[in-house]
C-alpha cells in the first residue's frame, strides 16, 4: 500500500503506462504522460523553494492540468490547497491568507483573478501557469516551460503519511471559510475503502462531476489512481446541459458515477436517456442531500445495469457510512445513510456525549482513519469538534462531532434526522445561514438581516433572506443581490431578498426565524 497520494501515480504509470489517467472534453492524458507532467510541476515548485508542508494553492477550471497540478504539488512535498474557481476574489484571498499559501498554480484564463488578488495585497511569491507580464513583479512560469522541466530523474523529497496532503474549504458561519486539513494517511484510508467497496479496477472510468476543491473529487481522482483507472473530467458546459452530459457519459463509457442527487435528477429529466445507451455504468454513488424518491425510482429503471449506493459523510471525514440500494427490490423510505465504513466507528450520543441506545436520536460521532486532522489555524473549533471520550477497550480517543442528528434503525442501519445547527445544503453545497447573514450585514445599507431555507421540492434547499435597510438609501433586491455576489459563491446567494420594516423577534430579542418563515415562505416546507 502506498504511503503518499503521489506515489500512486508512479505505480499506475508502471502498471498501465499507456492507459488513460484522465479524459476531458475529448482529449486524454496517459498515466505515463501524467507522471512526466507531475515531475515537471514538482520540479518547478522545488525551484521556487517549496519546502515540506508549504501550502500551494491550485486555481484551475476543469482540465487535464488538474491532476498534473494536484500530484505535482504533493510530489514536491507541498500541501495542496485546491480553490473553487467559482469563488469571488474576496473569498480566494481569505483562503490564501488563512492557509499562508504563497504559491499559486493556475492557467492563462485566470490572469484577471490573479491581478485582482495582487491588487488586494495578497502575498504571492510565485505563480505557475501564467505568462511573464501577467503577474507584475511576481515571478511566473508558463505551462510550456513546466513541461520542459520534466525528466525521468526521480525526485528526492521526503514526505510521510502524516504530512498534510490537502486543505479543503467549505462554508463557515462567520464568513471565514472552514479549512479542513487531511493527511496523506487520512486520504489514503478513504481511497482503500473506496477501491475495495466498489471493486475498482484498471478498466473503470470514474466521472469527475464535482468541483475539485470538494471531497467528492478525492474519490474521483485518488481512488481512480489507486486502481490505475481513468478519471473522466466533466466540463461545466456538459454539467449545465444534461442532454450533452448524457452523450459524454455514453461516449466516454463512464462506469462509476459520483455526484449530488441534483445532477442525476437533471440527467433524468433533461438527459434524453431513452435514446442513450448507458450500460457501461456499473455503480452510481450519490451523496450530499436527499434524493427525491420518485426520481430515484425512475432513474434506477432507466439504468438497469447500475447498482446504486447512498454515500454519507462530510469533507471532515471523507465518507463514513454507506448504504447499497437492494439490487432488485424497491429502496426503503426514507433512504438510510447505512452502516459505518470498514475503517470507521460510528457512535450516536446525547448532549453529554454518552451513547444513545435503543434507537433514540442523537448526534453522530465518528472515529476512524479517514477523519481529518483538524481545521487549519482554528484551535478553538478543533477543541469543540474533535473531542476525547472513551473508545471500545476503555482508553480515551478522538471522535469527530458531525453536527448531524441520526438514529439507529432496527436492522442496524443509520438514518439521518437533521442538523444540530443552521447549516443547509443547496444543490449539494454546504451553506451556513449565518454566513449569508454576515455577508448581508456587510452591505452598507443593511441594518438587520436574517437568512432562512425553504425546500425546492426536489430534495434540495433554496436560501432566502429578509433585511431591514437604511430608510434614507434607495435599495432594491437587485442591488443587494449584486452586492452579495462579490462576497458569496453563487450557490449561497439568496434567491429572493425581502426588504421589511422590521424583523420578527423572540422575547429575548433574537430573530424569530419560525415566524419569519411562516410570514414569507408560504410556498415550501422549511428547513430552519
Amino acid at each position: 500500500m502506498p504511503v503518499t497520494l503521489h506515489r500512486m501515480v508512479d505505480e499506475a504509470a508502471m502498471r498501465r503506462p499507456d492507459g488513460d489517467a484522465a479524459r476531458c472534453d475529448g482529449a486524454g492524458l496517459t498515466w505515463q504522460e501524467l507522471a512526466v507532467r507531475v515531475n515537471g510541476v514538482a520540479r518547478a515548485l522545488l525551484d521556487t523553494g517549496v519546502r515540506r508542508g508549504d501550502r500551494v494553492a491550485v486555481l484551475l477550471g476543469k482540465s487535464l492540468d488538474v491532476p498534473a497540478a494536484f500530484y505535482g504539488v504533493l510530489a514536491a512535498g507541498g500541501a495542496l490547497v485546491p480553490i473553487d474557481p467559482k469563488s469571488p476574489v474576496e473569498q480566494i484571498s481569505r483562503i490564501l491568507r488563512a492557509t499562508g499559501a504563497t504559491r499559486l498554480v493556475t492557467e492563462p484564463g485566470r490572469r484577471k483573478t490573479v491581478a485582482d488578488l495582487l491588487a488586494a495585497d495578497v502575498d504571492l511569491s510565485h505563480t505557475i501557469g501564467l505568462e511573464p507580464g501577467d503577474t507584475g513583479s511576481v515571478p511566473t512560469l508558463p505551462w510550456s516551460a513546466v513541461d520542459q522541466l520534466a525528466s525521468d530523474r526521480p525526485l528526492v523529497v521526503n514526505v510521510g503519511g502524516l504530512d498534510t496532503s490537502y486543505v479543503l474549504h467549505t462554508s463557515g458561519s462567520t464568513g471565514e471559510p472552514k479549512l479542513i486539513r487531511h493527511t496523506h494517511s487520512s486520504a489514503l484510508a478513504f481511497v482503500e475503502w473506496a477501491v475495495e467497496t466498489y471493486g475498482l479496477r484498471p478498466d473503470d472510468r470514474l466521472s469527475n462531476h464535482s468541483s475539485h476543491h470538494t471531497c467528492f473529487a478525492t474519490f474521483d481522482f485518488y481512488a481512480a489512481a489507486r486502481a490505475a483507472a481513468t478519471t473522466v473530467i466533466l466540463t461545466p458546459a456538459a454539467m449545465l446541459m444534461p442532454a450533452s452530459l448524457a452523450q459524454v457519459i455514453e461516449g466516454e463509457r463512464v462506469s462509476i458515477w459520483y455526484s449530488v442527487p441534483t445532477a442525476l435528477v437533471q440527467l433524468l429529466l433533461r438527459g434524453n436517456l431513452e435514446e442513450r445507451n448507458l450500460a457501461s455504468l456499473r455503480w452510481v454513488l450519490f451523496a450530499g442531500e436527499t434524493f427525491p424518491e420518485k426520481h430515484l425510482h425512475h432513474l434506477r429503471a432507466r439504468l438497469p445495469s447500475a447498482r446504486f449506493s447512498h454515500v454519507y459523510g462530510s469533507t471532515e471525514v471523507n465518507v463514513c457510512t454507506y448504504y447499497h440500494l437492494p439490487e432488485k427490490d424497491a429502496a426503503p423510505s426514507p433512504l438510510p445513510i447505512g452502516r459505518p465504513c470498514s475503517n470507521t466507528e460510528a457512535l450516536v450520543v446525547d448532549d453529554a456525549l454518552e451513547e444513545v441506545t435503543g434507537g433514540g436520536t442523537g448526534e453522530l460521532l465518528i472515529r476512524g482513519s479517514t477523519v481529518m486532522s483538524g481545521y487549519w489555524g482554528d484551535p478553538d473549533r478543533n477543541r469543540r469538534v474533535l473531542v476525547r471520550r472513551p473508545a471500545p477497550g476503555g482508553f480515551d480517543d478522538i471522535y469527530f462531532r458531525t453536527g448531524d442528528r441520526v438514529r439507529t434503525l432496527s436492522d442496524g442501519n443509520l438514518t439521518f434526522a437533521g442538523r444540530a445547527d443552521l447549516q443547509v445544503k443547496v444543490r449539494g453545497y454546504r451553506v451556513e445561514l449565518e454566513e449569508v447573514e454576515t455577508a448581508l450585514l456587510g452591505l452598507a445599507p443593511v441594518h438587520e438581516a436574517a437568512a432562512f431555507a425553504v425546500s425546492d421540492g426536489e430534495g434540495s434547499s433554496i436560501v432566502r433572506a429578509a433585511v431591514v435597510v437604511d430608510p434614507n438609501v434607495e435599495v432594491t433586491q437587485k442591488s443587494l443581490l449584486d452586492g452579495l455576489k462579490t462576497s458569496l459563491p453563487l450557490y449561497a446567494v439568496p434567491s429572493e431578498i425581502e426588504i421589511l420594516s422590521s424583523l420578527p423577534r423572540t422575547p429575548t430579542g433574537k430573530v424569530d426565524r419560525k415566524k419569519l418563515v411562516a410570514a414569507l415562505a408560504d410556498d415550501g416546507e422549511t428547513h430552519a
Partner: protein
Amino acid sequence: MMVKLMHDDRPVNPAGIQRRILDFIGEELIAEGLDIGPDDDLLSGELLDSVAVLRLATFVDETFAIGMKPTDFLVENFQNARVLAAYVVRATRDRESDG
C-alpha cells in the same frame, strides 16, 4: 431572414433575438456592470449557475414560444447568445413547418 413570433406577431431577426437574450442575462442573471457579448461563454460555470441557466431556458422558451424539448438542452444550443439565438430561429422554423 425574418422570423415571425407566435405570441405577438412581431417579426424579429436573429440579431433582435440575440439582443433580447443578452438584455435578459444582463438585467436578471448577472451582476450590474458586468459586460456580456454575443460570443461570451454562458456555460463556463462561473458566470451562470444551473439555476440561472434554467431561468434563461425558461425565458427563451416563453418569450419566443418555441416549445423547448428536454433534448434541446445541448451545449451547442446554449454555449453563447449567438448560438442560442440561432437555435431559437431553427426551433421557430421547425414549429411553423410542423403546425
